[in-house]
Every structure is written in C-alpha cells, then in structure tokens.
C-alpha cells in the first residue's frame, strides 16, 4: 500500500490534484458516496463500497486504485504469482493459459499457480453446503468483495445468507505457500504470494487481517499494470516456444468459475439466479430483503457486469473477453466435474463459520429527539428543492443535497435553481432608472 493511514479501509483513493471537476464519478456512484466540493471530487468513507465504478468512468486518473507494484515485493526471497481467471481472457484467442502462465513467470516471479483445480474443490464443497443448508433462503455467493461489503454495510440481516467459504484464489495461495515453504525449507513469511487482480476491491480483503480469518496473499498487482510487460513476454514465448516444457494442470470445467452464471452451472443447481452489475445487485438485495426470493436456492452475485471479466482493471473489452473464455472452455472441453482425479485440496477446511460480520461505524447512543428534528429539517429542505437531481451543487441528488444542507456543510443558496429564482424575483422588482428621477 502506498497511501493512507492504518485505518483507511478502502481500495481506492481520490487524488485532488488531478481532478478536473467534471463530476462524471458523482452520478455513477451507486451509493452516493461522492461529493464534489470546490471543483474536486472527494469520497465519503463511511458510504463507499469499493465497487470501482468511479475508477472505470474517471478519465483524469484522479481516482487511484490502491494496489501494489513490483517494487513492493522486493522484500520477499521467493514470489508466487496467482492470476485471476480473467487474465486468461485478455489476449488473442490463440494464446492459451499455458503460454500466459509461463510468460507471467518470466516477468519476474519465481513461481506461478493456476486456480482452476481449486475452483472445482471449492465448488464441490459449496454444492454440498447449498444442498444441506436448512436456514432461510436464498444463499448468496461471497466471492465478490464488493457484494460482501454491500451486505455487511447495508443489509446486515442477510449476512447469514452469505456462503462462508474461502475463494479458490485464497485456497491456491495457501497451498502454494505451504508447498513452497516445505520444498525450499524456508519460512512462510519469506514467501510473497501476489494476486494478479482485475479489480481493486480484492486488495481490501487482502490487507484486512481479522482474528478469525486472514488472507494468504501478500499483495495484488492489477492486470492493467502488468499487461504491457506480460504482452512482450508472451510474444517472446510464442516465438521461442519454450512453454512446451511447462505443465500446468488447467481444468476446462474449472474455467466456468469465471463465467457469468458459472457457479450455478458448476454446482448443478437448477434453482439459482445470477445477477451482475452493482445496481442490479442492489435491486436483488432489496427483493431478498422483502422476502421475494425465498424459493430460490442460490444467488450468484457480481458487482461488475459479466462478473470478473468486467473488472475495472482489465484491458480487453468485456465482450471479447467473454468470447475468449468460451473458446477456452471449449478448448479444454470438460463439461462436468472430472472424476477419478485426486482432489489436491481435499484436506483443507473451506468453510469458516462467522466469516463475515456486520460492518458499520461504531455509533454512540444518539439523542432521538434531536435526530428526529434533523430528519424533519432534511425533509423540509428537500421539499423546497427543484428535485431535478442536476448535481450542479456537487451533491449527486437533491436528497443528498438536503442532507448536506442539514448537516451544515452546504447552504441552500448553493442550489443554482434556487439562487436563479431569487435573482429573477429581485430583477422583477428592480426599477430601472436614475436615482432621484
């Protein structure tokens, strides 16, 4: 991490010097966590859910994902890179994961690992968990950190619906670390495991080490950061064909994990739904909260459209990436869980009870009377506003503007429509002519 204090709990930060105040991010933020003040965008930390929508839309580069660079890993004697499945889809369709992985190793890692086998192990356990679950339905997938964060912050009553299972990346990271430390006879702390990530939200999970559960990763490098170096390495590998000597145990079935709808498909769960895109996720969570989806067994949830292929730090456009993924699945051609193969991760415990806890700021006991007064003040201010949600004041909607005025951060005259009306009124009553005439 190159920025921020210990307590900073977000994967992105706003660099004011680069912001040109165009406010593209203001409107895109699905949870109204951005304000523009004096021409510079800023984030309301207690509202942000790390979805990365603002990173995608900002053209000035003032919204910076907090990820690592190569330099951060020089302290480790041995490094292992574990790429997200999205990396396999970022190149020309003729370039196979084997080539990508061996080229990735050449860019400066001691070892690389593929996660598709771990995907199958995780899915097996998850399928069992869904089948045996007796509580309130539907169960919700927990692999998208943004979706988990939304639930922790805004829908704490749905926390028990999250499947408390570790992700295939984590599983691979744990196993690779253990293997390498046994093979090389060095301590695990000397081994750096790095995730090649399509989105910034993973970094929050990685940096968070709670008592119950901690990540085996030591950092994350965005796909976009590594892309150019990797692209060159791939060209060289293709020419020299030296990846022929490497072997990676890649499963075509495991690749379905990255596909939108892949989880339900892999678990063979016909009573499941898939939702992607942050606004759709919020809509479905509202529906679940109202009890509309009690008859669905499983909901696969992704903050980005087209799941991790749509991550803000990918390079290839998401539709091409999707085609690439489908081609890869066909190329490896396993349509169901492969039998007879030994499960490398069989002995691992994948389910962690109470893995997720509600997340909100510690509230001191509030004075209800004052709070209610404030609420009616907000309502009163809101009733006077034009309600066109223009955003010119720097708050995304008239409702948030009313909140900001009630908090004393803004003045009602910061609304350009109200100010304009006042001026027009004044002009009407203004009498032209010379004084004393």
């Amino acid at each position, binding site marked *: 991490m190159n920025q921020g204090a210990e307590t900073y709990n977000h994967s992105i930060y706003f660099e004011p010097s680069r912001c040109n105040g165009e406010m593209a991010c203001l409107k895109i933020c699905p949870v109204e966590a951005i304000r523009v003040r004096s021409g510079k965008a800023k984030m309301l930390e207690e509202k942000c859910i790390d979805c990365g929508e603002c990173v995608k839309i900002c053209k000035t580069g003032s919204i910076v994902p907090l990820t690592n660079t190569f330099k951060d890993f020089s302290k480790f004697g041995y490094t292992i890179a574990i790429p997200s499945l999205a990396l396999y889809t970022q190149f020309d369709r003729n370039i196979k994961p084997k080539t990508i992985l061996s080229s990735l190793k050449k860019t400066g890692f001691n070892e690389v690992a593929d996660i598709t086998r771990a995907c199958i192990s995780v899915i097996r356990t998850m399928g069992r968990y869904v089948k045996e679950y007796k509580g*309130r*339905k539907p169960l919700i997938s927990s692999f998208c950190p943004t979706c988990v964060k939304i639930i922790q912050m805004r829908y*704490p009553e749905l926390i028990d619906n999250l499947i408390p299972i570790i992700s295939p990346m984590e599983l691979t990271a744990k196993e690779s670390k253990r293997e390498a430390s046994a093979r090389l006879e060095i301590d695990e702390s000397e081994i750096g495991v790095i995730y090649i990530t399509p989105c910034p939200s993973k970094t929050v999970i990685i940096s968070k080490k709670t008592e119950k559960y901690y990540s085996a990763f030591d950092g994350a490098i965005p796909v976009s950061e590594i892309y150019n170096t990797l692209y060159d390495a791939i060209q060289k590998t293709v020419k020299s064909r030296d990846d022929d000597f490497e072997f990676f145990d890649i499963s075509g079935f495991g690749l379905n994990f990255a596909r939108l709808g892949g989880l339900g498909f892999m678990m063979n769960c016909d009573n499941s739904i898939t939702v992607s895109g942050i606004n759709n996720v919020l809509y479905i969570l509202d529906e679940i*909260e*109202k*009890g509309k989806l*009690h008859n669905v067994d499983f909901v696969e949830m992704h903050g980005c459209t087209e799941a991790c292929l749509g991550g803000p730090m990918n390079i290839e456009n998401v539709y091409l990436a999707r085609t690439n993924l489908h081609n890869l699945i066909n190329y490896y051609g396993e349509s169901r869980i492969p039998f007879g193969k030994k499960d490398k991760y069989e002995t691992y415990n994948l389910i962690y009870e109470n893995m997720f806890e509600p997340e909100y700021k510690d509230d001191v006991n509030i004075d209800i009377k004052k709070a209610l007064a404030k*609420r009616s003040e907000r309502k009163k201010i809101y009733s006077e506003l034009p309600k066109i949600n223009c955003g010119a004041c720097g708050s995304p909607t008239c409702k948030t503007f009313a909140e900001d005025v009630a908090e004393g951060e803004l003045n009602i005259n910061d609304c350009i429509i109200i100010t304009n009306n006042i001026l027009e009124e004044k002009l009407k009553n203004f009498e032209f002519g010379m004084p004393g005439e």
Partner: protein
Amino acid sequence: MEQEILYNKIFRIVGRDFANAGTVSVKIKKILKEIGIKPEVVYRVSICCYEAEMNVIMYARFAKMDFTITSDEVIIILEDEGPGIENIELAMKEGFSTATQEMRELGFGAGLGLPNIKNNSDEFKIESELLKGTKLYFKINLN
C-alpha cells in the same frame, strides 16, 4: 411510566397481497436508518416487522401496524382481522406452522415467524381471539 411519543405512524397491511409483501418493514427500516438509529437495532426491528407483516399477508384479511418511537424504545402494535390463533403456545414453538403447501412452495411457513419476533424483541405480548383476529405487541430498546 408513560413516555413521550416522538414519532408515530400507522401502516396498513392487506392479507394475500403477496405483490407488496415486505414493503412496510422496508419503510420502517428506512425511517429508522434516516434517523440514525444503531444498525443492530434497525436489524432487529426490521426482522420482527418482516415476520409480523408476513404473518398478516399469509393468514389475515387486514391489519394495521402502529409504529411508535419514544426516546428509548421502538414500540409496534399490530392488530389484524383474521382467523386468530387456536393454540398460542403451539404457535410459539419453533418449527410449528399451519402454512399450506402453496405457501411453503413460495418459501414461507417454516414455523419460525413468531419465535423469531420473540427472540429479537425485548418485550413481546400476543393475544388472539379465534375467528376474530390477533393482537401483537412488541418493543425493542434503542440503547
């Protein structure tokens, strides 16, 4: 001791209205959130309200939910016109349900409704008259 009522609102719930199921508890949750009540309390209130609301929608014809906030508690009184509960002791047992097959297919009727309200509230009372209706009273402390 009578406490000063700081906020009061009455919601109406219509039985069998599955299209609008859950909307009243979502509204209550929204109000509590806007005031800035502690999330744990909001969570408990919304669970209780949701269960109570679903009971009305599944079994009763009509109900009014009286929602009150005082300086240190949330009080909800729910009066419905409906079939009433024959055996309250049995209805309070976890897993007991009179839900029809159709309701169960919709994912309801696990027999956890009333026990869930009792477990999540600080004070809970229930009265019922057969063929007339049920009156539910529960209270959740704010602090």
